[in-house]
Each structure stands twice: as C-alpha cells, then as structure tokens.
C-alpha cells in the first residue's frame, strides 16, 4: 500500500471532466478535435505510466490517491491504482484517443467529443474508485453524455432502447449496491460504501439473495449477453459503430463483476459462474450465427460486438489461470481491434454512405489502405495469428476447456463464424466492380495514423505477448484465489 505524494488520479479525472464540459462550448470542430485528442493522449500517457508503475507488483498492491472523501462515513481515500485497473486506464484512453483522431470530419461534432471525453473521465473514475457510491455515480455518468445523441432529429432513434437496457442496468447495479450499503450500515460498518471496509468486515453484511441477482442482471444487461443483447445490433444500426464502441469497449459490465462481484460474493459467485459462463457463451454463439446473415455492415458489426465481447465474460468465469488471463487479455485485444474496425467502417461510410452487405461496393480499387486495415483489424478481433487476439483466444480456449469441458468447442465455433462474417463484410464492401462514378480517396493522414496505430499496437502486443500476459497473470491468479478459496478467509477479501 503506497500513498501517492500528489493527487495524480484525482487531478487527471477532474481536468478531463473540465475539458469535456469545455468541449461542448467549442464551436470550431477542428479546435474541438485537437482538444479532445490532447486530453485523451495525455490520459493514455498517464495510463501507460501507471501500467509501468504497477508492473511486477502483486495483485493486492495499491497506490492510493491522497484526496479523501467523507460522504456516508469517515474520511477515506477513494481512488487507487492497482494491477487490475492500471492497464485498463491506458486501454480506455487509447480507445477514445483513436476514435477522436480517426472519426471522419462530418461525423465529428464538438458535443459528441465532449460526451466521449466525459465518458472517459467517468470510466477512469469507475476503474479507480474504492467507494461504491462513487462507483455508482461514475457508472451513471458514463451513460449520461451519450443520451442526447440517441435521439436523432431526422434519422432513427434509439433513446428508449438506451434507457431500457443501459439505464436499466444502472438501476439494477445501484439497487444492488444500495442494499449492500444498507446491510453494512445496519451492521455498524464505519464506511458502509467503502470496498476496503466491506472487505475487511467479518460480519454478514451482504444479502446475496437481493444484491447478487440484481448485480448479475445488471452486468448481463450492460454486457449485452443473451437474452439482453438486442440493444447492441440495434444501436450499431441506429447510432453507428463509433458510438457503440465507445459504450462497449471499456467492458464496464465485466469490470463490475471483477471489482464488486467477486470480492463481495465469492462463495455465491463460485456457484453461479458456470451458469453465467453458459449465458455468455450462448450470446457469443448466437451473435456469431446471426452475424452470418446480417444484411448491413453496421448490423454485422453489432453482432460481432455481441459475440466477441461475450467471450471476455466467458474467460472471466473460468477458474483456471489461463482461461481467466485469456479473458483479461481478450478484454484489451477485442476492444482495440473492434475500435479499429469501427473507425474503418466510419471511414467507409464517410466515403460511400452506409453499406448493405447484399451487393458489392468495389472500394478496394480507390482505398487499398483502408481495405488492408479493415481486414487486419477485423481478423485481429477474431484471433489472427501474430496479433494479441490470437494469444488471448488461445489462452481462453485452453482455460475454458479445463474449467467447463465442452465450452472450448463452442468458443471455437463462435470465432469461426465471426471470421467468416469479417471476410464477407470485407468482400462485399471492398471487392466487386467499382462504379465509374466512385471518386473517393484512400485514408487521410489522420485516419491512417489512428488505424495503423491500432494495427501496430495489436501486432506488437502479439509479438510481445509474454509481457502483456504477465501484466494480467497475477490479477487472474488473485481473482481465482478469491473464487476457489473464499471459505478460508472468513468472508473478508481485498477488493
């Protein structure tokens, strides 16, 4: 446990929030883009620094931010860096950085950039906080900025779906946390919403029959796992892949599970996880199967997100180190690859409009680099050899088979179908006769930087897979310790 000498974490979040609010008032899109890219890049650098700082540390080591909060209990630090969240901070910032840098100019609006930056600040808070109250506030805040964009003044709307599924998930999680806090308060815990105090408490303060089911439903809703997956393809079609990826790439549902679920309900989760794993697996296979018949590029992307994101949940529910580490690595690789793919789709739509997959567009002749990055990033999301995705899927399949025999085969079927969907989307978009009127260019330097940067990250992650996996291995071992040996620690576990 180390106390940071300067409130780096609080300062970063507050500054980012301020920039996010300021962005909404900037009228010049170029200036707004520079500001947003600068903020995301600074956070990405800070996140990389944090990852280097925690490298090699044991999973229960924490670097505490000195700023304390005194709401509902004694003053206590609320933000801390640890080996679980440090790489995720860098990852979340890189996703937003790539989206801010690579979004086509016509699709770039200062208000949307503002929403993305506020979302990033909320995501950082959620990853860093040790306080359940702040966690809930950050969870809700992460959803609010994108709400106005769900109601398009002319195009399709997604507001009700967004409210039903995403705010539904927030409500479930808030009620679950409130019930935990209420039970802790009755039991006399000094800070009933502090994850540290709750973990240290030896009294029974968690009513699992209320909180756990609500928490799990909240997670499944946010993750878009079967049967609560319908919002993902619908939002992809109505809002576009870039809006969708900002919501789904941080894998906030999965984080709720590892940050709150496993520490607070280890015994119950150890029993419930096989069921949740199967639900996630059904989502993965179902999404992969429906991706095969998707009629538009946007819908195919939506099903791809459903399928590949569910695999992260499958990994997190493995009780083997390789499966769990595979899930944690997949978290990063799928997010980066799908972000790149969303950017590539955005670039396609900026050139030739939304694409149906029932005809050929012949874009490769005019935009060969866009075609190449689309293909590499698409296959990287389903485990292209040489990229980080291959490493993650290899670990996941091995681990899943050892945990739940039979699941490994289903994962392979899902990724097999997704690979076909990628090639189908690629050939229909980039191959075929090019219309003579097709007068568009290849990637602009800004787009190329974002897309090629993500390709380089994924390939470098694949080549240097050892160090990347090593950052996830202690976290995986720690989570499994909690799940497999909770009875020995009398109900108290470090968050």
């Amino acid at each position, binding site marked *: 446990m180390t106390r940071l000498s300067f409130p780096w974490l609080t300062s970063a979040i507050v500054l980012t929030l301020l920039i996010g609010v300021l962005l909404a008032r900037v009228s010049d899109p170029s200036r707004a883009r520079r500001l947003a890219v600068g903020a995301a890049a600074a956070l990405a650098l800070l996140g990389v620094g944090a990852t280097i700082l925690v490298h090699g540390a044991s999973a229960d080591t924490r670097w505490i931010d000195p700023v304390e909060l005194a709401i509902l209990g004694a003053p206590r630090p609320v933000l801390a860096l640890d080996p679980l969240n440090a790489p995720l901070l860098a990852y979340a910032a890189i996703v937003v950085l790539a989206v801010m840098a690579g979004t086509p*100019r*016509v699709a770039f609006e200062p208000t949307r950039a503002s929403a993305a930056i506020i979302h990033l600040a909320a995501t950082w808070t959620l990853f860093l906080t040790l306080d359940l109250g702040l966690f809930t506030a950050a969870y809700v805040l992460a959803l609010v900025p994108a709400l106005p964009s769900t109601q398009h003044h002319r195009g399709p*709307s997604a507001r*009700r779906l967004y409210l039903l599924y995403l705010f539904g998930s927030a409500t479930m999680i808030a009620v679950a946390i409130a019930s935990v806090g209420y039970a802790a308060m009755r039991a006399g815990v000094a800070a009933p919403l502090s994850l540290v105090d709750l973990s240290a408490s030896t009294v029974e303060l968690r009513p699992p029959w209320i909180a756990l089911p609500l928490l799990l439903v909240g997670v499944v809703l946010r993750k878009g796992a079967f049967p609560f997956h*319908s919002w993902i*393809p*619908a939002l992809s079609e*109505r809002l576009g892949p870039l809006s969708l990826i900002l919501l789904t790439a941080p894998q906030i549902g999965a984080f709720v599970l590892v940050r709150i679920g496993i520490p607070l309900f280890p015994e119950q989760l150890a029993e419930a996880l096989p069921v949740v794993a199967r639900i996630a697996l059904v989502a993965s296979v179902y999404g992969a199967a*429906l991706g*095969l*018949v*998707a009629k538009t590029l946007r*819908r195919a992307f939506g099903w791809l997100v459903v399928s590949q994101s569910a695999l992260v949940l499958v990994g997190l529910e493995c009780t083997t*180190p*390789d499966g769990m580490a595979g899930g944690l690595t997949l978290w990063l690789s799928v997010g980066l690859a799908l972000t790149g793919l969303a950017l590539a789709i955005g670039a396609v*739509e900026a*050139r*030739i*409009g939304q694409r149906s997959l029932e005809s*050929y567009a012949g874009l490769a*002749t005019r935009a*060969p*680099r866009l075609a*190449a990055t689309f293909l590499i990033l698409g296959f990287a999301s389903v*485990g*292209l*050899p*040489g990229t980080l995705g291959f*490493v993650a899927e*290899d*670990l996941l399949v*091995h*681990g899943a*088979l*050892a945990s739940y*025999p039979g699941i*490994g085969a289903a994962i*392979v*079927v899902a990724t*097999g*179908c997704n*690979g*076909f969907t990628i*090639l189908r989307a690629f*050939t*229909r978009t980039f*191959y*075929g*006769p090019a219309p003579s009127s097709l*007068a*568009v*260019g*290849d990637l*602009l*330097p800004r787009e190329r930087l974002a897309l*090629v940067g993500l390709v380089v990250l994924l390939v470098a992650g694949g080549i240097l*897979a*050892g160090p*990347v996996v090593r950052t996830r*291995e202690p976290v995986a071992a720690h989570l499994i310790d909690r799940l497999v040996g909770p009875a020995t620690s009398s109900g108290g576990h470090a968050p």
Partner: protein
Amino acid sequence: MITFVDVLEFLGVGALLAPLLAFFCVGATMLFFRAPGERFVARLTALAFGLSLLASIGLLVGMAIHDVDRISVDLGGWFSVGNYVFELSILVDRLSLPFMLLTAVLGGVIGRFSRSYLHRDPGYPRFFLLTLLFASGMLIIVMAGSIDLLFAGWELVGITSALLIAFFHHREGPSGNALRTFAVYRTCDVALLVAVVLFHHHTVAADYQTAYGDHWPGGTAPFDGAIATPVGLLLVLAAMGKSAQVPFSGWLPRAMEGPTPSSAIFYGGLSIHAGAYLLLRNAPVLERAPIAATALVVVGIATALLATLSGRAQADAKNQLAYASMAQVGLILAEIGLGLRMIALVHIAGHASVRTLQLLRAPSMLHDFHRIHAAAGGHLDPTGGHYEMILPAGLRRRLYALAIHRGGLDALLDRFVVGPMLRLLERIDRAEARWAALFEPPAAPDPDTVARPEAPVARDGTEAER
C-alpha cells in the same frame, strides 16, 4: 563455442524467417509508405526464397553427413500462464525437410514465373505479399514443433488462400468463390482447433517430440484408443477441408478463379497437401484409431473416384487439373490411412512438382499441344477413352451427368445444410429487428445518410470533407 548443431539450428530458423521478414518488409512498405515497385518486390521475394532454399539444402546436407535424424530448436515460450506455456519450437526431420524444400523451390519458381505473368498488373505487390505470407504460413505448418504452432500457420494459409482466390476483385465471381472456400476452411478449422484442445486436455506434452516419443515415421500416441478415435476423426475432418476431399471438395474448382501462379502453388503444390502433412505428422494418433484411419481411406478413395470422373467432364484445363489434383490427394490420404507413410511422402513430393508445372503451363497449353503434335508428326490420340467404352451406354450417361454436376455435392450441401440454416438464422434476425422496433420503430432511411456519402474525400487524399 559454436557447434555443428548450432549451425543447423541457425539454418532452420533462417529457412523460416526469410519469407516472413520479406513479408513484413513488403507489408510495412505498402501500409506505411506506398506500393513498392515491381523490381523491388520481385527481387526481395527471390532473395527470401533463395535464402530459405539454401538454408533447407544446408540442413539436408548437414543432417545427412552427420547422420542427424532431427533438429529441434526451442525458441522459448511465446507466452505462458501458470503451467500452460505456448512453446515456439521448430522441428526439422525427415517429414518436415522435404516440405521445406518443396516450399522454397515452388515458392521461388512461382515468384519467378509471376514476375513476367503479372507484369503491370495493379495487384502485383499484393500478389507477392500474399505469396510470401502463404509461404511463411506453410513453413510454420511444416516446421512447427507443436500442434499449437501448426494451427497458427494453418490459419494464415487459409486466409491467404481466400484472398488470392479473390485476387481479381473487380469481378463478383472470384469474391463469392473466395467466401465459399473460406466457409469450408473455417468449418474444418473448428475441427482442428477442437482436436488441438483435446490433444492438450489428455496429454501434458506440448510438442510432438515429447508426445510421440520416437522420430518420424515412428512414434506412439500418448493416449489410448478412446481418446485417439475422436482426436483422429477431428484431424481427418480438418484435413478433408484443406485437401478438398468429399463432401467438402466443391471449393477446389471454384478456387481456380485466382491467378494461375497462385492456383499452381496452392492447389497443385503445397496448400492442398497441408491436410496430408497434418495427418502424416500425427500418424501415431491414426495408428491407434482404426476407425479414423478407415474413414480416411474411404474418404480418400471416394474422392479419387469422384474427382477422376468429374475431371473427365471438365471443359477447361485448370478445372481438369484441379480434379486431377484432388484425385491424387485422395490417393495420398488413402495411403496415409493404410499406414504407408513413406510412400505417401514420396507421392506428395512427386505430385506437387508435376502438378505445379502443369498448372503453370496451363495458359500455354495450346502452344504446347501444337509443339508436341508437330514433334510427333501428327495428332496424338486422347487416352482413357477405351475404358469408358467398356461401360453400358445407360450407365455411361448417368456417370456423365454425375460428372457434369460434380457429384451434386454442393447442391446437396446447399439444399439440406446451408440453406435451411441460413433461412432459420434470417428468420431469427428479422424477429430480433422486430423486437427492437417494438420500443422504437426505425425511421425511414434518411437520404442524406444512406444514399449519399457522408463526406466526399478527394481522390488525391486531401481533406475535401464538408
């Protein structure tokens, strides 16, 4: 002190790395800068295959002189978690060395041939890039010390195969055929990956050397028949996809849409034999799984018969050669099923070389015929016709119809497997869309966002967006 084995290990790594580095070099140039010139790409490809060939010959000579049966290079673990380690190990032995030599020789020949054949084709650098990636994938398959690493190469070969079938991408036909081929590959790849996972589940050994013990063609499976049978059957299924065996054979004639040099190296020379290599490498599993071995013999012979029949009814040279290739690979697989490993290996080497030559000569076939006929002093009689005359006329007609329809296998698969599955999925997808529309009916397509590009971008790449 550098030992002789160190030199051989260095050569082994060099043989694999040469085309892989050339691929990265061409790929990075295309991605970061601009498409490189023809001369640069052709020379780099020639250099890569030349170095790979020299390293392979060095290994052959060195291993023969010093009577070394096997060189195993352990490059360490790629990544590891707990007890699981993904080993990067290279194995050069009596099985992999002939395939390495074939890859380097045929790759070099194809590179040289394509230099003239694809001159001034807009896809020139893309062709060489994919050929280098294919050769790297093929070398990973044949040099992998473990089945995990083999799978990585297997995937690369599948992807490059599909992309080269669709090489002439301005037409819809090649793209559709590439998709169909890829669908068969992915289906059968699932079988391979499940076999890999089962393999690991039932043995702690990560590499062939530990798993099978003895040098190839010897060795014993590390598990009993109850495990060997499903693993063997899955391996056979994986090989059937890659080697175009019935009922998955329909993709091979479609794959001939690709440029002739890629057809030659993929479907005459190397890729089509990858399934045979997989089964030869894991022959100890088949030995312990008689059901899988029998299935392999049946599939191989059935493929050979159907391919011979269909090949005789094809109207173009490339399709005839595709079926001839399929028939020979069917026989090779039957040989492997019967345990004739060395015969199968010799058969592969001979067949790959002859078929590559035939496919490369296919565009000049008329010229060749004229030359042969001129040299022979008149027309030569076509062969094989007298066998057909032995059959009754009715049977002949039925067989002809069967041959024309290529056994009707694609139609059967489409009608009874693919069609119903896709219809069911489409129905579910429509139900999904209706469910989402219950909450929020989708608005009518906005002409501003659907019909028109959102942001026109100038052809010269400058930001001409609105």
